[in-house]
């Protein structure tokens, strides 16, 4: 019964099945790489001279080829399309048949190294889109590395000096940027560095999802993210507090190259060619650049920072150094400054050794004037706070605010922070008397506004009693 219906259904289904079986079979026997292979064979034939090469051209294997790299835990199938990488006849051919540039493959034969160990990308894939993995929809975390960053891959096995000697100096130049722009002032690497930014350990091998790609203009890859982020951090991460430290496009590329060498994995021993040399001990100036320069810049002038919404003090300012002795500087660096972005740099926090801090202090102290200021000779605050209040309201409130909180759109710093609360009397008194060169803080003593020493004692006494009206904002 329903014989005609079922027979019709059977016939229609069978025909559809037949057609799609043929189509699936055809798709299966004509993968992309086969057409590349036949194109390559034609090219090879036309270029080949001599019996041997001609034979070689004819003997191209059309089945899928792969390089199995046991120790590297990789299988690379790139050579199914990039067929001429080791063929000198293909020197002028177009990609993908072009011979590999330079003499790299002489020292890094494909059979031993494959391709993805340097170029990344998805070695197992057999079509261009998935193999290159640049498109996000390919779901591959380590897409092909743009050639301008390729030096970073060399650093997996080679030390930077060796690379620099051999023309791959971009890593070394990138590291110079990394040090001189003070990246470690905010970012930890190997447990040493500031805490304001994310630690950078393993960033070169982070999966793509680690990087918020929303505002990235180019390819949605970690490489483009890093580069565009260095160009303008807030265009990629709007809430970023990172400062724009780079001026030139070129520098951003160099820094990207260096950052990509900070990897979580390590090459097998057999592949590594790292010479162990004596590590140069960085001097005070270098350490200052590495950890301090990002915020304090030259240290000569205080700057109101739009991102932190506070004034960053001028720590190499002579008038500051005149009142702050080495021990005090060391304490500032070791313990940081509570309620500010200043990190605790001591060994069990941000990781600087006593010795390193000593060298930074030494470097800072170079700018200290030989002559110390006249001492007040006080060890406690004993001014008349009622009088001090009157003086404060006429002289100080304009910049530091009625509430003493300083803050947004005010020139003065907050006076209710521990920085001020816990400072020595001598330090505060002299600062008020002599002002702070290079900052809006003018001298209130005889060289400026001409307050008497007693006035200064009173006003500082009052300042010490101000209580924060609300919790200070970050």
């Amino acid at each position, binding site marked *: 019964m329903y014989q005609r219906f079922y027979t019709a259904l059977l016939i229609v289904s069978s025909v559809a099945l037949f057609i799609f079986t043929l189509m699936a079979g055809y798709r299966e026997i004509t993968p992309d790489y086969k057409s590349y292979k036949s194109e390559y064979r034609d090219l090879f034939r036309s270029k080949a001279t001599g019996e041997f090469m001609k034979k070689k051209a004819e003997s191209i294997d059309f089945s899928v080829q792969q390089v199995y790299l046991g120790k590297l835990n990789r299988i690379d199938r790139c050579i199914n399309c990039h067929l001429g990488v080791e063929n000198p006849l293909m020197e002028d051919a177009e990609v993908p048949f072009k011979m590999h540039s330079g003499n790299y493959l002489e020292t890094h034969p494909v059979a031993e190294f494959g391709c993805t160990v340097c170029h990344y990308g998805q070695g197992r*894939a*057999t079509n261009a889109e998935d193999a290159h993995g640049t498109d996000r929809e390919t779901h591959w975390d380590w897409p092909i590395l743009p050639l301008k960053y390729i030096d970073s891959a060399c650093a997996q096995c080679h030390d930077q000096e060796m690379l620099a000697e051999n023309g791959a100096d971009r890593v070394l130049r990138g590291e110079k940027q990394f040090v001189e722009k003070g990246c470690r002032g905010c970012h930890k690497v190997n447990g040493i560095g500031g805490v304001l930014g994310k630690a950078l350990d393993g960033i070169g091998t982070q999966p793509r999802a680690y990087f918020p790609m929303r505002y990235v203009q180019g390819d949605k890859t970690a490489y483009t993210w890093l580069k565009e982020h260095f160009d303008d951090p807030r265009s990629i991460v709007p809430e970023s507090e990172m400062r724009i430290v780079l001026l030139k496009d070129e520098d951003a590329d160099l820094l990207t190259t260096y950052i990509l060498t900070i990897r979580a994995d390590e090459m097998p021993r057999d592949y590594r060619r790292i010479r162990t040399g004596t590590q140069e001990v960085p001097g005070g100036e270098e350490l200052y650049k590495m950890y301090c320069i990002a915020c304090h810049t030259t240290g000569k002038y205080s700057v109101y920072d739009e991102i932190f919404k506070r004034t960053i003090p001028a720590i190499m300012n002579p008038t500051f150094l005149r009142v702050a002795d080495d021990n005090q500087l060391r304490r500032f660096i070791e313990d940081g400054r509570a309620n500010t972005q200043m990190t605790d740099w001591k060994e069990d926090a941000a990781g600087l050794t006593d010795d390193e801090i000593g060298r930074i202090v030494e470097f800072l102290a170079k700018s200290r004037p030989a002559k110390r200021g006249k001492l007040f000779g006080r060890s406690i605050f004993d001014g008349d706070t009622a009088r001090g209040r009157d003086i404060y309201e006429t002289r100080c409130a304009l910049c530091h605010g009625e509430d003493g909180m300083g803050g947004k759109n005010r020139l003065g710093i907050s006076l209710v922070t521990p920085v001020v609360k816990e400072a020595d009397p001598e330090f505060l008194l002299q600062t008020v008397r002599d002002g702070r060169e290079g900052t809006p803080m003018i001298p209130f003593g005889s060289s400026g506004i001409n307050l008497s020493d007693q006035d200064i004692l009173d006003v500082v006494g009052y300042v010490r009693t101000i209580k924060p009206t609300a919790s200070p904002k970050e």
Partner: protein
Amino acid sequence: MENSKETGIKKLLENIKKLKSSMAASYIREGKPESDMSRAAVMFNNFFLHFQGVKTHLNTLRPTYTFGLGLIALFLLVFTTISGFLLMIYYNPSIEHAYNTVKDIRYVVFGGDLTRNIHKWAGEGMLIFVILHMARVLYTGSYKRGREFNWVIGIVLLSLTFVLNFTGYLLPWDQLSYWALVIGSNIAQSPKEITDILGITKFFDIGGFQKELLLGGTIPGKETLTRVYFLHIMLLPLFLFTFLGAHFWRVRKDGGLTKPDDFVPSISPEKMGGIFTTHKTYGLMALARGKTPAVDRDVENTVLSWPHLLRAETAVFMLTLAGVLIYSYFVSAPLKELAAPLIPENPAKAPWYFLGLQELVSYSAFMGGIALPSLALLGLGLIPYLDREQDHVGVWFSSRQGLYVTITSFIVGTAVLIGILVIVINFGWFRNWWPDVPQVLITLVNPGTIWVAFTIAWSVLVINRTDSTRMGALALFTLFLLSFLILTYVGTELRGPNWEFYWSRSQWPVH
């Protein structure tokens, strides 16, 4: 001695000549199915065909009665099993190699990608067709007259289909697998919500135990993959095929598919030869419940299974195979990045068929993950025992009233469920209104429990108004089906990062 004249060699040559016909005859022992007798014999003498009757009722062949749904589900199982065998040749169930071997299957195994697609889509297709088959059985009242327990077996098969699909989803060890596993294990852990409220988690942590049983640890790892693989290729298929055997056996014993009592064929059936006579006796094996053709009536409404039933089945087989192949040709099974425990997917979603549950879990982990699904399965399983009216079997929606109840339930249910969802999405729930509300109150009163309470109340109301438990069953099942559809849709399409509401995927904040 005539035979002595023939030499051994001659006999051998003779036998070789006859090889084709003698082998065929040994396989089909009753000769070509040319007579009614041999057509009948082909059915009951063949192991693979004897699950079906020698004669088939015309109603069974009516395409608009069964739509071939159960059969399609069976064929999908066959395809997914065979493609599964092929995948097992290459797949390696270790966290180091699982992802890579799946990549190899995609890129270099001949037909590997297609095989994987077929395996995936046939498996998920099973879910859809098992549910549709269940709906057909319910709406035609086919869980009655001795078929009550077979309905329960069907529920078991449905659950197994879900779990098999889920375990398969975990094997590629990509981001989808990993985070589905995290969600799955959190659901397994959700009784903790209750033991925490009772304050007995310290002594009796059933949730934690379930989680560790699934994961073989506290986070998904290599132990988990071993377990999931064992479940997927061994234990669950074993159960599935065993219960499937029982399912078919019972259909056969219950006299084949249900049919209306007053069946009138729309086309006059061919007159059949007299295989079944009223005075023939049958062996015990052939005894079946229900009205067999032997009981004079209805005999004229049956046709021989060979060729009529087999033709229909072959057509459905071809249709299913073509459907799976065409779908698999165009749509690739997803494969995301390698599992990264430190990089959560946002939103981390279970596979689509569990997203309705995940929506419920977002209200209360215990209710959504354990209590309500268990209650739903229990409720479905009890339908044949709570509705014991024996008339109108084999008729879609039983009667005009049944159709009316179904449509009304559908409309009212849609309105109520969408209403509840609109409230949750726009205004949040207790926690947003009174941050200090005790968790026990949310566990007991949340959109999920309110909806289930409504389905029960509505079904009782229908029973009360119509004086028919059958009408209540139609209402209850309609609401179940509806909530599966709507909640799955909401979970799949309308929920984005942090399980927040979005009209479409294109509005998700791009990460």
